């Protein structure tokens, strides 16, 4: 699949599907070290995205879709994840501008802008046990793949794999941001729900690009 507006739309539809499928898993992760709503919040948001996608104008660009997703998530998710993911997609939209087909550099820019947006709002650093711990390795892996000449599909696959590893790697951490930070040592051994949802969303991006 070429990385164009159809890809972005398909990515978002797949996102809605995987979030819905993993709703309970995300709720459970958040019950363990948060307040048990992450899966519910994300599912509500992406179901709203699904509805909104139907009204997209025919001439929409990838940036238009990302912006629509951003505003929809901001106005439906709530909690910490709503503004954070909302900002991520908003900044990603800005990064791809009016381009209609995204090459490797554009994808790296998209992911970098998304990550930077989350950091801007949430002030988390790597190792704080947040979604940043999935986003940052994903950005690094995407850059590395792109600079070693990989194609779009491989770049996304590298990002997804790194995000998944990053989510797993949050397990031994003590949290320093978000609700889990109140737990101190007791957060150890639990995966961060936001990092896990990031891994799911980036896996969706890669799978859709790979035609899977």
């Amino acid at each position, binding site marked *: 699949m070429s990385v164009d507006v159809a890809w972005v739309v398909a990515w978002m539809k797949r996102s809605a599907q995987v979030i819905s499928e993993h709703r309970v898993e995300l709720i459970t992760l958040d019950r363990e070290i948060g307040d048990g709503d992450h899966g519910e919040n994300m599912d509500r948001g992406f179901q709203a995205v699904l509805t909104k996608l139907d009204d997209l104008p025919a001439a929409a660009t990838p940036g238009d879709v990302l912006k629509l997703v951003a505003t929809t998530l901001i106005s439906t998710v709530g909690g910490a994840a709503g503004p954070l993911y909302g900002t991520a997609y908003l900044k990603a939209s800005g990064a791809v501008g009016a381009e209609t087909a995204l090459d490797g550099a554009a994808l790296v820019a998209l992911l970098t802008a998304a990550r930077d947006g989350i950091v801007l709002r949430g002030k988390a650093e790597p190792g704080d046990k947040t979604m940043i711990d999935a986003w940052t390795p994903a950005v690094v892996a995407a850059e590395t793949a792109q600079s070693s000449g990989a194609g779009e599909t491989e770049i996304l696959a590298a990002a997804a794999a790194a995000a998944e590893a990053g989510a797993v790697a949050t397990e031994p951490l003590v949290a320093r941001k978000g*609700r889990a930070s109140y737990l101190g040592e007791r957060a150890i051994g639990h995966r961060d729900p936001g990092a896990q949802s990031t891994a799911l969303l980036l896996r969706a991006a890669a799978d859709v690009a790979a035609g899977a």
Partner: protein
Amino acid sequence: MKKLINDPKNVVNEAVAGFAAAHADLVRVEFDPVFVVRADAPVSGKVGLVSGGGSGHEPLHAGFVGLGMLDAAVPGAVFTSPTPDPILAATKAVDGGAGVLHIVKNYTGDVLNFETAADLVSADGLEVRSVVIDDDVAVKNSLYTAGRRGVAGTVLVEKIAGAAAERGDTLDAVAAVAEKVIANVRSMGVALTPCVVPHAGEPSFTLADDEIEIGIGIHGEPGRERIKLEPADAIVDRLLASIVEDIPFVAGDTVLLFVNGMGGTPQIELYIVYRRAAEVLAAQGIEVTRSLVGNFTTSLEMQGVSLSVLKLDHELTALWDAPVQTAALRWGR
């Protein structure tokens, strides 16, 4: 999970509808997006007070909408801070020309969503300020956490800032009063049992039959430590020690003592707790001159209690005593 609900997705909307029906003399309610405002909003020339946050803490915040307290409350989904849209709409609905104060509990989600709403409001040319409450001493305030949480002290901030707005204070002055309450109130809680978020259907944490969670958050977030069940007096002593040493409160201080039930605690237990807390403060030379006892900042059906102590001066005492007419707090009217 046993709850008196219908579809978990409709919990907030149905409860808000019931609230509006039961209190039509006090409030008006909007559904798209959802918020609750004073029946007479906007009050011309008065600073508007807007608070909000996840649902499940009732009567916080809708129960405090009315004369002398909040102008609007914005309920999010259960334990999920509301999105910017309803905050924006509520802010506009209560703007009486003197600006609006956002009263925000210190949680990442609340802070970010209110921040976004405030940006949007300001862009519309409306004057808005925010105060962030972080009264929970269970969380050590440091660079290594999201900072202290806002818990039951919120009720005191809303009451006292509401009275300041009602007497005609400017936005800056109301914000200053709110900041003064925030600077002088400290809280800490304990859970005996967990709560169950309707959409989750499972307890937010588990406690053995002989365990309690000291320093519990109001979303069922685990607290400082898990210990064996103790007599009420011993539990009160723990909570109060952490609170008193924090500001610190000292002999000669005049305070308001607030014993807050977490939702599922029988009133008889709240008064057993009050008795001990008042005794311990008195023994330290700290004089309790005002009190509040009840389920005001809850975590659904959680059993447990939080203590809040607010250092009073003449101004805060007078503002506390000022008339208030809301569903959950009412006097002087």
